């Protein structure tokens, strides 16, 4: 099925493959993203994969928009572009207490124990659908449906960096201190965004994440290591 190509002013288009959170739709977005990255297109500035569409930003003066559209349709038609091999992250998380202030209430709301919530949350493999909102903020799919929970009525004006949280059917790892109405279950010492480190960003769209519960006593050591620029989260290519 051909995507819809929607105008975003004169300097960008949105190539839309669907309107839902859907792994197959996201896979097509990432395949087109990878395909465009392999080609040198005059005027192309950057692409931004999202849940369901690829934002393509270009210089309106230097770009032949009709040629770009034609290229996008032909690349989308081939479908199975060899997308890059997936990276699987193991991300340590301290759940509950001061690290996840909403865990107890969240568990009570679902008539589960905190341990059951932790088991359900860390038992899933999440897909990074996109990075957005804030630098390095990872939007995750794959949440256990039992944990789906509407956002808080009153968003907090400040939530800590590296919060591991749930909002609706989505899960996330945050990157910087920010306002949020999501439920805070835990916190990871791993820094998704760290300007002084190489790589600056840990996660990319298409990556997979598995959370690994760790004891609160491990925080100080791991946090210090992360502050020195170590990744703390481990990564393997699948």
């Amino acid at each position, binding site marked *: 099925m051909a995507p819809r190509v929607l*105008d975003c002013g*004169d300097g960008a288009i949105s190539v839309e493959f669907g309107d839902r959170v859907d792994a197959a739709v996201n896979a097509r977005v990432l395949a087109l993203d990878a395909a465009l990255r392999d080609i040198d297109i005059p005027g192309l500035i950057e*692409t*931004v994969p999202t849940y369901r569409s690829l934002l393509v930003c270009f210089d*309106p003066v230097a770009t032949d928009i009709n040629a770009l559209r034609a290229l996008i349709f032909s690349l989308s038609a081939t479908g199975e572009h060899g997308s890059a091999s997936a990276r699987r992250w193991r991300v340590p998380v301290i759940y509950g207490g001061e690290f996840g202030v909403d865990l107890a209430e969240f568990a009570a709301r679902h008539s589960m124990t905190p341990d059951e919530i932790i088991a359900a949350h860390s038992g899933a493999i999440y897909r990074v659908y996109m*990075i957005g*909102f804030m630098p390095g903020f990872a939007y995750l799919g794959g949440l256990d449906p039992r944990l789906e929970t509407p956002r808080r009525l009153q968003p907090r004006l400040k939530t800590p960096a590296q919060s591991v949280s749930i909002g609706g059917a989505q899960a996330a790892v945050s*990157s910087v201190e920010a306002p949020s109405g999501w439920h805070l279950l835990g916190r990871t010492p791993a820094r998704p965004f760290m300007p002084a480190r190489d790589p*600056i960003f840990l996660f990319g769209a298409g990556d997979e994440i598995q959370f690994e519960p760790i004891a609160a006593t491990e925080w100080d050591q791991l946090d210090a290591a992360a502050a020195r620029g170590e990744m703390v989260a481990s990564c393997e290519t699948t």
Partner: protein
Amino acid sequence: MSDLIVESCGASTTLQDAGRFRYRRYGVSTAGAMDLHALARANALVGNAHDTAAIEFCLMGGAFRIDGGSALIAVSGPGCIARIGAREIEPGMSARMEPDDRLTVGPVRDGVYAYLAITGGFLRARDMESLSVHRRSGIGGLPLVAGDRLPMADNPDQPLRRLPPETRHTPEPIRIVLGPQNDLFTPRAIETLTTQEFKISAQVDRMGCRLEGPEIEHADGFNIVSDGIVAGHIQVPGDRQPIVLLRDSQTTGGYPKIATVISADIGRFAQSPPGSAVKFRLVTRDEAVEAAKEMREKIDALATLARPVEDQSAKDMLFAANLIGGVANAFDFEPRWLD
């Protein structure tokens, strides 16, 4: 090496260049000058490339000194007057600052954003390939505060330059292109957006501008699965009052976007002060691209237009001179500098 020292400035005074690109996929906003044409004017007057980082003022000006050598500086921005000591810098002209001179930049009286450029630019480390400050994330640093010292490039003996005055912004409608989610709005919503007047509310900053006016009605709900955002997008949340997203906007968002301000007009839109009225006019994508080309040519032309003062003919000098200071401005005669 010499420094520019900030003596005082408004809370939203930042360093900005043309923006930060290629990091949007990691959630990093482009940031960058709110009015690229005004940035280019200040840079042209000091012999810089059009996208060299300059100090951006928001409504309020500031006061500066230099420590070390002399510097060639220029200020641009609607209705913004700068002085070195008690001497007013002629609008559209660069000026030389010596150690112990005090530069005061006045408020931006006829708009929102003004720029202070310096020959060679500021010697700061780039953050992700740009000097632009994104306040919310701290990328590129923080807004300037009193006491900050900005190292300046050594200033070769650049001549003073002069530009023809900026033609006053006529209140022409801001041009927009429909999309990407105009199909999620009623035909009446599009009619309203393109015919009615809106007011720039007090809720406006580098991230976005909330408009007040008639309601823009959605055809069916207002939650979409988040997708990409660019500067100029006009998103309409549940309260039906449109928000125009600007350079510091988040990279993705979940409200439908009815239309997008064209790139050639986004700087002019950003210069609309809170409380002012704005109208939108629908154009085709081709017209938007044509306007982008015209804007690019206009910016490119500044480099040759900003001629060293010494090179100007006697006639030019006569036009440029303020012959009847305090009564009228010679520039009001609109000399045809391009001829």
